[in-house]
């Protein structure tokens, strides 16, 4: 995943529809035909690396030109709409200059004759280019202080770069017959480098730890910032509203309650989609009615299951029961209990208010007979109301679940 991300960062033109993007030549930002840029996007490297590689290979025996031409022929052009952007001639000139300089150098060292002698230089050059590209400007600074951090990321490419450089160096020595002469020097260098590494190791380790600590600190600060933003958007806002409505105790109660619920949900409740699960739907219905009527509704849910059309109807019946309790019972708190069992869902809505006598409820009272009992029965469930004057009311809803 990290690699894919780097690809996008390095080359936004890389086509993103495909899981494995096909090699394409982009129009935007191309210097000659877009070959280097396309290949760079594919490999997750900076186009500069490949451009320099092509230049280098061209100088050393002309392979670069051949490779470039071949890729140009076999790679499709990326679809592009609009007027073609003009090429950046100053960059082309720069690469040309580099090419000429390298050619001069090659002529001086005698490597331009091509053949085997040129390969080590090419390998080493490309390898070091990859290595340097791995450390982009702001990473490069850290790279200087902690090598460890960099090596961990994009390990594969770093290793490839290192291998190329080493192969290039050894190859150069071998080709120029200097390998035997260089051996004492290499041993000496290894010992010195090893010694330095040994001395610097604790310091590097400390630096690494420090870096980790800073990272953790930053994550903590981000979390705190998110928290502060949340508190500011919700809690502080509500506190202001409460101060403004201080004379209206009912409104203050409602505000405080709804804020408390919101904060609790944010802190403790798993994120749930109220359109999908029964428990989330019950909580939402209760929250809405609590807000609408200013009576606290305590919800306890046990188990959970997906919301079917029948259960949605049940939620509407439960909502009606809560509305009745909040409006007419005079109870200071309403208890809602919902339990999802494998074969049925039950919802209880209970208040400790005035209660009533079922016989006294007129036939035309829609609330209980139609919205609760009728609705449940129409959808294959059942509803029972237990109440007595002075004893409070409990509405019990049951909905059988169809066995899947």
């Amino acid at each position, binding site marked *: 995943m990290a690699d894919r991300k780097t690809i996008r960062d390095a080359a936004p033109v890389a086509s993103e529809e495909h899981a494995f993007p096909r090699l394409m030549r982009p129009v935007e930002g191309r210097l000659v035909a877009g070959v280097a840029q396309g290949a760079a996007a594919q490999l997750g490297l900076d186009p500069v690396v490949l451009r320099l590689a092509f230049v280098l290979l061209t100088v050393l025996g002309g392979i670069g030109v051949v490779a470039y031409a071949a890729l140009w022929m076999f790679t499709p052009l990326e679809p592009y709409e609009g007027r073609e952007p003009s090429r950046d001639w100053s960059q082309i000139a720069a690469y040309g200059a580099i090419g000429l300089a390298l050619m001069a150098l090659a002529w001086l060292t005698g490597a331009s004759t091509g053949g085997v002698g040129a390969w080590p230089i090419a390998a080493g050059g490309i390898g070091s280019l990859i290595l340097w590209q791995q450390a982009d400007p702001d990473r490069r600074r850290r790279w200087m202080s902690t090598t460890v951090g960099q090596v961990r990321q994009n390990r594969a490419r770093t290793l490839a770069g290192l291998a190329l450089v080493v192969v290039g160096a050894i190859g150069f020595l071998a080709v120029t017959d200097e390998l035997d002469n260089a051996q004492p020097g290499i041993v000496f260098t290894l010992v010195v480098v090893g010694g330095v590494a040994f001395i610097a190791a604790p310091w590097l380790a400390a630096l690494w730890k420090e870096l980790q600590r800073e990272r953790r600190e930053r994550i903590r600060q981000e979390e705190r910032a998110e928290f502060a933003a949340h508190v500011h958007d919700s809690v502080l806002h509500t506190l202001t509203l409460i101060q403004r409505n201080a004379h209206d105790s009912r409104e203050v109660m409602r505000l405080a309650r709804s804020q408390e619920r919101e904060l*609790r949900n944010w*802190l*403790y409740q*798993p*994120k749930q989609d109220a359109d999908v699960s029964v428990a989330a739907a019950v909580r939402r219905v209760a929250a809405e009615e609590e807000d609408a009527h200013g009576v*606290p509704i*305590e919800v*306890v*849910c*046990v*188990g959970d299951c997906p919301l079917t059309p029948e259960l949605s109807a049940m939620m509407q019946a439960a909502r009606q029961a809560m509305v009745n309790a909040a409006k007419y019972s005079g109870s200071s708190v309403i*208890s809602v*209990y919902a*339990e999802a069992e494998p074969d049925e869902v039950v919802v*209880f809505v*209970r208040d*400790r208010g005035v209660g009533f006598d079922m016989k006294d409820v007129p036939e035309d009272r829609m609330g209980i007979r139609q919205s609760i009992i009728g609705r449940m029965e129409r959808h294959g469930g059942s509803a029972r109301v237990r109440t007595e004057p002075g004893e409070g009311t*409990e509405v019990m809803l049951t909905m059988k679940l169809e066995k899947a």
Partner: protein
Amino acid sequence: MSTVRVLIVDDHRLFRSGVRAELGDSVEVIGEAEDVESAVKAIAELQPDVVLLDVHMPGGGGQEVLRRVLGAGSQVRFLALSVSDAAEDVIGVIRGGARGYVTKTISGRELTDAIRRVADGDAVFSPRLAGFVLDAFASSEAPPIDPELDSLTQREREVLRLIARGYAYKEIAKELFISVKTVETHVSSVLRKLQLSNRHELSRWATARRLV
């Protein structure tokens, strides 16, 4: 009935004085403590009947107090009183040894009842705690390791369900045609299972609820 001697442990001074005022003369508040250290010390010195214990406090919270006091072999009874109703807090503090859990929104009268009950050695379950327990014991698919401890009886389930529905003990007794004492026995038995069951699912369930 002799007055119950209560110690209030909470790191919010305002809240302590609020509880003190709400309890009034119904119980005897013999002291207050504001963190783990002072709580442990005060419990050892004052030997209260019931400790009202906040869950979140500096220095390890209520669970740390439970661990140190009960770990030392004390017989003091704890009633957890917290604003949090996160499953891991509720289950955590009960498994830590508290004999009940109520949230801070509880009324003064109900709190007094709860304190009396805990002082008598009974358990106090809020509707939410009852819901948590039902959920936790129902969620297991694996066969229980110790059937006696790892599952609830039909009756215990019924009692818990009624608590979750908002019934008081007296109403539960009436509903199930049993005595209040029997209701208390069932609740205490559930508490014991909750505390002693070594089903690791309980803790895992509690944490999982928070992580989703």
